[in-house]
Every structure is written in structure tokens, then in C-alpha cells.
């Protein structure tokens, strides 16, 4: 039997080591979670492949289907990770006392948050890279060159802030099951009619004015404008920032850690 020295020797690990460990743990759990992978990778990939011929099904407007659908799929990828996946995971972390357990450990709360942000960033980088490459292989012809991709990163960050704080707002107040239901429902609703995949110009006038105020409409349209070579419209950027700030304030006031 190995001897254990149980005498006290307390101390927190170095902050960087804690964060690395936390991000690695989150990513390992994610990679084992079938539903999350379906949501973040399989569905966007499927829609991208199917979307190359979507003009035969839905009229997306002038231009090639692939050029219209790919930016929307990139927006969907951001939504799936920063909103649905984050909300569900956080909801169940509250339910199972994970947040409480980590709250009793040397990992500070901002460390827990940074761990989540780090994991989301890693997943989104993988998603956006993979989907862009597959899009290009399927014939996607983005305009705007490297600048457009840099603008995509900015939009992805803003979209993640907006969707992420919305997700935490739900996960921090509702029960885990309710969070699961709401997060999936919102995902489907925004996917179908949130201005993510279908250009806002294809919606009726009244609907368009509502959708361009939603983070989904703003992110979808922002990415379509960007890859049309026009850069993201200031309006889309402002909408995303307003959502991020409002939901962020809401989270800081209402989030319950257990």
C-alpha cells in the first residue's frame, strides 16, 4: 500500500495551469457528448452540403446558393456553440453541483468563465475552419479576401458575446430541463426563421425589420455582407453589441451559481 502524506500543504495552482486544465476538461467532455457534436458540427455540415442546391427548394435570391448559404452556416455554427451548447452545459452544471464544486476549489469564478470562453473559442475556431474549407471545396467564392475573414472573426466574437450572454441568462435562471428545451427550441426557431440562413431581403418587409434587430439576423446578415465584399454593416455590429451588453448585465444580476 502506498503511503499517503495527508498533512496539510494547501495552495492554489498557478492561474494559467488552472485555466489550461479547465479548458481541457470542458473540451474532453464536449468531445464525448454526441448530442453536442451533432448540434455544433454534424447539422451545420449537413446543411452546408445540402445548401449547395438550396435554390431548387427555397428561393434565396440572386446569386449562387453556395455563396449565400455558407456565411449563414458560419453564423449557425456560432449560434450552436455560443448559445445552445453553452446554455445546456451550464444548466446541467448547475443542476449537478459542478459549479458549486468548482466554486469550492481554488479556481476563481472568473476562471470558470474564462475556461468556458476558452472552450467556446477552441470549438468555434475548429467549426469555422472546417466549414469554410468544406464551403470552399463545394465551390464557395467569398469576396473581400483576408479582410473579410478578419471581419468574420470580429463578428464571431461579437455574436458569441451576444448569444453567450443570452444563453447564460437562460441557464442561470431556469431549471436544467427547461434550459434544455428553450435552448433547443430557440436554435430551431432561429435556424428556420431567424434570418440566419435566409437573407433578410427575402423576408416580408415587416418581418425584416424585426429580424434585423435579432442577434441571429444581425450575425447572419453581417456575415453575408462581409463575404459579399462589403464589410459588416454598422447596423449589424451595433445590434450585436447592444444584445451582448444588455444580456451581459442581465446575467450579472440574475445568474444563480447553484
Amino acid at each position, binding site marked *: 500500500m*502506498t*503511503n*499517503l502524506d495527508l498533512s496539510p500543504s494547501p495552495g492554489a*495552482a498557478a492561474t494559467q495551469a488552472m485555466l489550461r486544465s479547465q479548458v481541457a476538461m470542458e473540451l474532453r467532455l464536449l468531445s464525448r457528448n454526441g448530442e453536442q457534436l451533432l448540434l455544433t458540427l454534424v447539422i451545420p455540415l449537413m446543411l452546408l452540403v445540402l445548401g449547395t442546391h438550396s435554390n431548387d427548394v427555397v428561393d434565396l435570391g440572386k446569386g449562387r446558393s453556395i455563396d449565400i448559404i455558407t456565411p449563414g452556416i458560419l453564423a449557425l455554427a456560432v449560434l450552436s456553440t455560443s448559445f445552445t451548447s453553452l446554455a445546456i452545459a451550464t444548466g446541467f452544471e448547475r443542476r*449537478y453541483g459542478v459549479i*458549486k464544486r468548482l466554486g*469550492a476549489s*481554488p479556481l*476563481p469564478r472568473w476562471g470558470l468563465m474564462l475556461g468556458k470562453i476558452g472552450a467556446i473559442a477552441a470549438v468555434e475556431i475548429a467549426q469555422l475552419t472546417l466549414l469554410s474549407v468544406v464551403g470552399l471545396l463545394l465551390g464557395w467564392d467569398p469576396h473581400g479576401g483576408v479582410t473579410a475573414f478578419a471581419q468574420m472573426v470580429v463578428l464571431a466574437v461579437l455574436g458569441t458575446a451576444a448569444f453567450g450572454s443570452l444563453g447564460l441568462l437562460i441557464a442561470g435562471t431556469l431549471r436544467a430541463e427547461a434550459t434544455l428545451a428553450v435552448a433547443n427550441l430557440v436554435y430551431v426557431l432561429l435556424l428556420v426563421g431567424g434570418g440566419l440562413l435566409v437573407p433578410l431581403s427575402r423576408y416580408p418587409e415587416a418581418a425584416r425589420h424585426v429580424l434585423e434587430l435579432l442577434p441571429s439576423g444581425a450575425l447572419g446578415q453581417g456575415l453575408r455582407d462581409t463575404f459579399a465584399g462589403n464589410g459588416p454593416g454598422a447596423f449589424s455590429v451595433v445590434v450585436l453589441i447592444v444584445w451582448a451588453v444588455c444580456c451581459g448585465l442581465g446575467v450579472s444580476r440574475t445568474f444563480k451559481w447553484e
Partner: protein
Amino acid sequence: MNQPAVEVVDLVMRYGSVTAVDGLSLAVEPGTVTAILGPNGAGKTTTIETCEGFRSPQSGTVRVLGLDPVADGRQLKPRVGVMLQSGGAWSGARAYEMLRHIASLHANPLDVDALIERLGMQGYGSTPFRRLSGGQQQRLSLAMAIVGRPELLFLDEPTAGLDPQARRATWDLVAELRDCGVTTVLTTHFMDEAETLSDLIHIVDAGQVIASGTPQALASSGAKNTVRFTARPGLDVEKLMHALPHDTKVDEVSPGAYVIAGDVDPALLATLSAWCAGEGVLTESVLVERQTLEDRFLELTGKALR
């Protein structure tokens, strides 16, 4: 005098209209094991979670290692080990993985493999948390509490749901931790656990400490112990009572069966023997009954179910 490891003064905690903790005070000496013993709903978990910094006291003060558990949380967290009553792991995390993760958040953690061996967790290291049995989850939870080598340990019902072997193993570990200088505060509603493990017991009911003391002192306080003996029926109990110390009572509860209630000590037994010898009475089956901690607990907290 050492600064107490934990000091709770007049703590009040309410949930809506329910008062969970109602002016509770207690102190924990460093290097000791202290049990907070009480029936369900007595306020044990709320008290311990306030000490862990999960809640702010609504009234009263809580100091842990001389610090405020909420305001000084960052300083305290590495020094304090916490075992939650349930949960505390991702449902998909494997037992080893979870323990390694918690270990990685500490500067000088225990050797994880040695700890796993010590707690007999080898059989289910790669099982996801949600598939562990209740007892296995408890042991993982205990492991997570001590892996960071804390100086103060809070265990919330550490052996609930454990089989007798695992309970013994947990008790041995707590005793060893004390020998190594770790202070432990545990909640329990098992008398034998409180009696075996702790240096000091606080009996808590309805949000207050209603009795404190060492297990022996608590058991022997309150109602006196008894001696039962049998002899021929019809002894003169009045005469016997006069021979015994002042506030001792003697009854013949049924013909030939006598009960002496009072401060039972060797002198009393010697007096009884001498008196019987003088009367030419042969006593049979003299039985000294010590009041147990459980008797005392039920006497203090009542027998009503809650």
C-alpha cells in the same frame, strides 16, 4: 489560546418564511474533529455551507481560519477542503478524470493514484460519474475534498449511503487526517459516527446548538444512568435508598426486578453489594446501563418524525 479554526456567532439564515438557522453559535478548535449532529432539517447543511462561503450570513458572523468566507474566499478556498452532500461532478466525467482535474487546481495535491488506491476506487476509475453508485460517488466526493491537502475540511454527511466497510474506511481516513493535523468539521445524523470520530459534538436542532460536549460528557449528562438487578421479591427499597447516595432512586419495577437510577459509579455498586450482603440477599444479574449518546440525542431533540 489558539484562534478557533471556525467560529460562528449568532448565525441566522432564512429561506423565505422558513428560518433554517436561528442564532447558532459554535467554535471549532484547530486540529480536532467536530461533529454537527442533528435531525433532518436542523440547519446543519445551511450552517456548513455558510462556513464554506456559499452563502453570506443574513445576521451574525462567521470566521473561518480567521477570515471571512465570502469576502476572503480567494484566500480561503485553497486552504479548505469541501465535500458536498451530493453531486459535484459533470455527469459525463470519469471518476479519475474528475479527481485529477480537481487535483490540478491545487499547488501540492496528493498523489492521485495513491489516493485512489487508499480509497479503494481502482475498480471504477473510468466510469462516468452518472453511472457510479451512490457510495462510489460519495467516495469520489471525499477524495475531491482532500486531494488539495487542505488544513480545514468540511464534510457534509460523509458516510450517507455507504456500506459498513466503506464507512469504516472513511472513519479511519478522518482519524488519520486528524493525526496529520487537519481540522475536520462534519455533519451527520449517525450517533455512532459522531461518537467514534469526534472530539466535540454540537447537537443542533431547529437551527440552534442545543447541547455541546465530548461524546462521553454528552452521553452522561442529562438523565442519570441505571443499575438493574434481580433478587428475591419484596426487598425494603426505602431502606436501600437510605443506604445509597442522596438523590438515588430505587424501584421494584416488577416482583424481584429492581432499578436504581442515579449517579452510577463504582462506590454505588460497592454500597449495593455491601447492603445486600448485610441483608443476606443474593443479587443476580446486576446490569449497569449507561445512557447512550442516542438516548441523549432523542431526549434533546424529541422523538417526533420530521
